[in-house]
């Protein structure tokens, strides 16, 4: 057993709008091969495997059936977390701390281009009796949350557009990002309205990809070339019905961040954290999550660098795999491997995740170089 747990290997495939040359199995095999090589382990060195996936994203019921082969995990302890990517990381951390495993792989992949009706899938997440029969494009849930958030926080629609411009620009320098672009705030404001006040360019575009992380306890991590330590983790769910929720606020993210900060012993996150990869599935969510994670005390600009990777707006959105992609990007920052997007003195980083509409589930992960 080990109290200290590190991420010792990351493997990603470049995010792409389409990926017809590879099956999900082949894509995941590529990511796993990279992660194991990065960690300096073989598939036989991994004690336990965690996949993160949901049936309707795959078009397969009991989709966890199809996990083991491409991870080299046949006849090994494999479980699936039907949840957020960071819930998968938390599961791996708990497996290691319990003493039942020393090295754990966490996997997620998304073939979003294979889902022909995203709206139908998202709609299936709404309460079937009270909410779904309205038959509306499900983005409306985010739009209503956005309106209430702008109303309560006083942040402007222009500030939301700035998020899009900045994240797409940073993605130009991220080799695995699918949506790097030079845009202006006027481009964003002029994009088609989806559901007021939400505009088309404020919604992260879908992408395909696979990501694998390798986690290890202290002894096993000592042998790894470049461990990045998990200093704190939190994950929280609030109930998903639209009726009793806290519209306009990301209480799940605030609670998850508090849990992670407690574990990491951070009292002033805005000063102690150098950069953050926060969920930006919808551009306004970036601000909401910055507020929830207390990165912008007083409600102004964030004091830490947010989404140097380009975020989901710039990299592409891949459902529950998004949080693991962002974790992989945070690991690269702390290792100093982020190229032109490298944040100076990136010794402590934060990841904030969200499961998308209609959920109120998110996670927080504090990573550090020691």
């Amino acid at each position, binding site marked *: 057993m080990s109290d200290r747990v590190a991420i010792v290997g990351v493997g990603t495939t470049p995010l792409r709008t389409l990926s017809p040359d590879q099956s999900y199995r*082949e894509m995941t095999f590529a990511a796993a091969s990279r992660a194991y090589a990065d960690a300096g382990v073989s598939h036989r060195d991994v004690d336990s495997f965690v996949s993160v996936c949901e049936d309707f994203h795959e078009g397969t019921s009991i989709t966890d059936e199809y996990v083991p*082969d491409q991870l080299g995990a046949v006849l090994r302890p494999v479980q699936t977390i039907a949840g957020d990517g960071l819930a998968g990381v938390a599961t791996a951390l708990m497996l290691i701390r319990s003493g039942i495993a020393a090295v754990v792989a966490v996997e997620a992949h998304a073939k979003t281009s*294979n889902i022909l*009706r995203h709206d139908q899938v998202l709609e*299936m997440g709404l309460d079937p009796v009270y909410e779904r029969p309205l038959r509306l494009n499900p983005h409306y849930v985010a739009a209503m949350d956005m309106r209430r958030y702008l109303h309560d926080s006083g942040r402007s629609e222009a500030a939301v557009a700035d998020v899009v411009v900045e994240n797409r620009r940073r993605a130009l320098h991220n080799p695995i990002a699918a949506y790097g672009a030079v845009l202006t705030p006027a481009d964003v404001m002029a994009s088609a309205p989806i559901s007021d006040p939400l505009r088309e360019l404020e919604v992260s575009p879908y992408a395909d990809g696979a990501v694998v992380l390798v986690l290890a306890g202290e002894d096993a991590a000592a042998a790894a070339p470049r461990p990045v330590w998990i200093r704190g983790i939190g994950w929280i769910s609030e109930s998903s019905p639209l009726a009793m929720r806290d519209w306009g606020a990301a209480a799940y993210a605030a609670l998850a961040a508090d849990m992670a900060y407690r574990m990491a012993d951070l009292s002033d996150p805005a000063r102690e954290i150098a950069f953050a990869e926060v969920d930006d599935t919808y551009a306004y969510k970036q601000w909401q999550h910055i507020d929830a994670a207390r990165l912008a005390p007083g409600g102004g600009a964030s004091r830490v660098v947010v989404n140097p990777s380009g975020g989901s707006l710039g990299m592409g959105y891949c459902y529950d795999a998004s949080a693991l992609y962002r974790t992989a990007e945070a690991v690269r920052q702390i290792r100093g491997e982020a190229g032109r997007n490298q944040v100076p003195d990136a010794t402590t980083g934060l990841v904030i995740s969200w499961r998308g509409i209609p959920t109120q589930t998110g996670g927080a992960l504090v990573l550090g170089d020691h």
Partner: protein
Amino acid sequence: MARGTPRVIDAPPRGLLRGRGLRDEEFRRKVSVTPWAPALEYGWDAGLAIGRFLDGLQDGRIFGVRCRQCGRIVTPPRAFCELDFKPMDEWVELSDTGTVNTFSICYVTWDMKPLKRPQIPAVIEIDGTSPRVGFLHLLGGVPGRTVEAIRAEISVGMPVRAVWKKPRDRTGAITDILHFAPSGRRR
């Protein structure tokens, strides 16, 4: 046990036991029920290995792959050996004959409607692969409808041969093989 009969049993779970079972009639007519019929549509990328497998089927051929490390020859093809975790890219054309590993005689459809003629699903070990390697398909060309009649014709270990669709009807699908039929060959 008659439905709804209260049973007094001295065993756990003790205390208030809740959950009200509805009769079919109540469910369909008496209680509030909301219907939903989603359009859950997908276009799954076949990828390299299964893509080539489907190409082969369209061509009337069954392909497998061989692992350079462990030497196993398997089908359906895959781009990696799941045991050795190495790329598996040595392609092998297999024969379209095989052996019945196991079979069943199924009298219902996937949504539990009765079938007039039973389906005979089977795992077929394809000739030329490593032992006990095959895939799911159907057996056909067998007269009779009863379990007895069909079991008189089919047994585990029996040699079979693929019965293909006409070339022009093939689309690159597992159903390009209509079924496997007894080949009459003795092993």
